[in-house]
């Protein structure tokens, strides 16, 4: 429980309408979108209306040694917003203004509570685009997605969130406010703190303003779907597309388990015995798109696809994408708990990774479906289970361990886009070694010596 004075000070600072203290409200901030994760109730939820108020909240927290858990829309998949030590949940949703879209410099300046899609709608009015598009574009906040360095479907051609963040305003763990970076393309003044705070999951500072890069929206796009009876052939097709110097905006893959589940769910017309489906979209100038689509079709056929379809119009395009979009929800229907991982490997290792996951599923007698962003090596092995079945959950944890081991041994990484949070903290030394983990800790302690900001995430406190 919090001391009475803390609540009084928070109410005095923010007004009672922006401070939630009743059990019934607090309980709804005890979880996020992460499956099979213990929930924890905060002591209070506050929604500041300005950067200065954020700074004041931090100062109150320091004074009373209360942890702060920043929160956007709570859609992250690594337990990043769960207030494991109680304390203050800092909801950023009332800081939700688009401050500027600058057509001359191709930038936008936004507050952290802006929803990604809202920024995109604004940019689209000027023919511009903010490319990072996690599956949650219509719900996730800019602050949350910068803090997770979210990826999405367009990673292969357009990169991920970090490639679009040019400047930040931050409230540090001591309550001071700093700005770093800006609207200039070039900037080597001092250490690159913008890069450091992007993907920091709210453990180093609180983001209160973001300057992002926008690009001209592509003029046209075309989707192509290919069905394979063999995972290796699909892998070779991915390599062949890239080798032919085509960089699709998206290149997605679904394995057999996913295909079967999705097909039963939405009847998109996928063959049930297919071993892999590739879904590719090229975009750009109309003429280029036409040429590339035909080329991709030819490559897919040469690499042994049993079926190739090009969408003729937007309606057909939506139909092709229906299957991919339905992958996660369809899988989530099969069993009560859906453990979604995002281990990532170099693109050329995708077939190896898919086969390894299949082996791990068989060995541990589990249902694992895999789909994901084949073009950038970011796979989503998804374990279908029931968190109430403790014996099965043991096998789930074993399988997750093995998936991470394989990913790292193939030259990959624990997480491509969902972040470390609580979920993957214990695996960090597999990837970095003890010396690497110590570096993380030294950075954390340099910026937040008393572990006020999002404690219990990424860096373990000894």
């Amino acid at each position: 429980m919090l001391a009475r004075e803390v609540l009084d000070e928070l109410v005095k600072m923010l007004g009672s309408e922006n401070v939630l203290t009743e059990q019934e409200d607090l309980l709804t901030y005890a979880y996020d979108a992460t499956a099979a994760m213990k929930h924890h109730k905060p002591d209070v939820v506050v929604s500041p209306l300005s950067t200065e108020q954020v700074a004041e909240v931090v100062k109150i927290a320091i004074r009373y040694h209360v942890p702060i858990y920043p929160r956007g829309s709570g859609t992250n998949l690594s337990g990043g917003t769960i207030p494991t030590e109680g304390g203050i949940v800092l909801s950023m949703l009332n800081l939700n203004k688009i401050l500027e879209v600058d057509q001359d410099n191709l930038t936008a300046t936004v507050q952290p509570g802006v929803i990604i899609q809202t920024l995109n709608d604004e940019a689209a009015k000027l023919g511009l685009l903010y490319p990072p598009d996690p599956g949650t574009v219509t719900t996730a906040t800019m602050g949350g997605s910068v803090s997770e360095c979210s990826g999405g479907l367009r990673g292969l051609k357009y990169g991920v969130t970090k490639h679009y963040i040019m400047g930040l305003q931050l409230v540090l763990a001591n309550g001071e406010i700093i700005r770093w970076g800006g609207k200039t393309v070039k900037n080597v003044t001092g250490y690159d703190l913008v890069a450091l705070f992007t993907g920091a999951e709210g453990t180093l500072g609180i983001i209160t303003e973001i300057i992002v890069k926008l690009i001209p929206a592509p003029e046209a796009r075309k989707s192509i779907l290919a069905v394979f009876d063999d995972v290796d052939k699909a892998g070779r097709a991915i390599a062949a597309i890239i080798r032919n110097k085509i960089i699709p905006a998206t290149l997605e893959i679904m394995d057999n388990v996913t295909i079967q589940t999705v097909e039963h769910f939405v009847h998109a017309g996928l063959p049930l015995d297919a071993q892999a489906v590739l879904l590719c979209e090229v975009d750009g100038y109309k003429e280029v798109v036409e040429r590339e689509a035909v080329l991709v079709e030819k490559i897919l056929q040469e690499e042994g696809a049993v079926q190739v379809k090009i969408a003729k119009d937007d309606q057909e395009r939506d139909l092709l994408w229906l299957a991919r979009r339905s992958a996660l929800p369809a899988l989530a229907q099969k069993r009560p708990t859906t453990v979604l991982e995002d281990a990532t490997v170099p693109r050329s290792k995708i077939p190896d990774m898919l086969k390894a996951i299949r082996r791990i599923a068989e060995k541990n007698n589990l249902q694992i479906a895999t789909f994901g962003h084949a073009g950038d090596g970011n796979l989503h092995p998804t374990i279908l289970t029931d968190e109430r079945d403790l014996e099965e959950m043991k096998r789930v944890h074993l399988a997750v361990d093995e998936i991470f081991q394989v990913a790292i041994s193939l030259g990959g990484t624990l997480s491509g886009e969902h972040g470390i949070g609580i979920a993957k903290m214990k695996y960090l030394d597999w990837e970095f070694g003890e010396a690497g983990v110590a570096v993380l800790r030294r950075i954390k302690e340099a910026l937040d010596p008393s572990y006020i900001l999002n404690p219990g995430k990424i860096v373990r406190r000894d």
Partner: protein
Amino acid sequence: MSVYNSLDSITEELHKCMKCGNCQAVCPIYKETHQEVGVARGKISLVEYILSGEMDMTEGMAERFSLCTTCMACNTNCPCGVRFDKIILAARAEAVRKKGLHAVKKIAFTALKMQRVFDFGMKAGSIFQGVALKHIPNRHSKLARMRVDIGIGTEKVFPMLSKKTLRSEFPEVIKVKNPKMRVGFFTGCMINYFYTDIGRAIIEVLTENDIEVVIPRFQACCGIPASVNGDVGSARTLAKRNLRAFERMGADALVVACSSGGTAWKHVFGELLENDPELKLLADKWAKKSYDISEFLIHQVPFKKEGLGRVARKVTYHDPCHLIRGQGISKEPREILRSIPGVELIEMKEAGRCCGMAGSFSLVHPDLSVQISDRKTSDIAQTHTDTVATGCPACRLQLQSGIENAGIDEEVLHTIQILAESYRAGKKERKGSN
């Protein structure tokens, strides 16, 4: 097992929820409050805490469960197909079972109180109107504001109570020459007390199409205000009374012109009465022949196109939540509007987004209701039309209230009123040419 009987009935629905948060994108309440408890995911988690025993059903819980317009937008946007409409009804019914009606007294009471005020108003006639409601000058209709705040604020605009109720204005059976069918008209409270103009238009259009109209005198409130707030007992009593009233008079079909009435006859009566075999049978029988008026005119009649006269109106159409999502009706009213000569239909942004009325929701959460309504009003203003059509008197009230408060000149009508206007214009045109 029906959602009205036990929380256990929804455990499957709860399991389906993967906490992805997609419902945030469409929830009208969350859009205004930015608080997790406003969105489906938040309320689902509260039900889960109750079921797991971590939290009791408190009055605070009941209050949180009142934070929902039951607009069903989250249902449609949920990738996992969670039927949140079922979850919220079950949670509210449980709140009343566990805490008694007094737990939701603020909710149910205000609704009840309103009804009593209106009943009293009907009896006292114009004297009451002068005392409680302040007349607002309006070109289109008789509107009023509450003079005294009876717990719902004085912002809300009401239509003046009608001098005579619709049901006392007409005989129980309205005969036509050579009837092609006999149709029961369930008026609902709002059309009976306030918007008798809608009721008259329905009767006009039906008789114009050679349909005999039956308006059973003993029909009652549809009971939705009670059932959505968890007052299952009252809802059951009303369901029985309505079924018996229509069964006694008999009809080939039943039509309604409000979205809650349609939901009640098509779905809710059967669910409420599932443990009463005899009445359940009756409910199912009537459910099969119950239609929203626009659905009925398009698919069952179909309505006469000859004789439609010119109506010069620029119209935008607002989809009532319980028509578009509750009953899958959105094409039919538009088809009717498009078939009227002179009507130009201009779509507003997100025509299917909740207007914030939601029956007693607007009485319990007046401020929120007005915030949601303001978004709607500004979308309407951007269409530069002169008329808003909709399919539900409750939405009509909310839209009128928003438009009045924003000072825009726009008439709000039920779709069928415009159709009736067109038949009338047709007659005039024919007279003129004779």
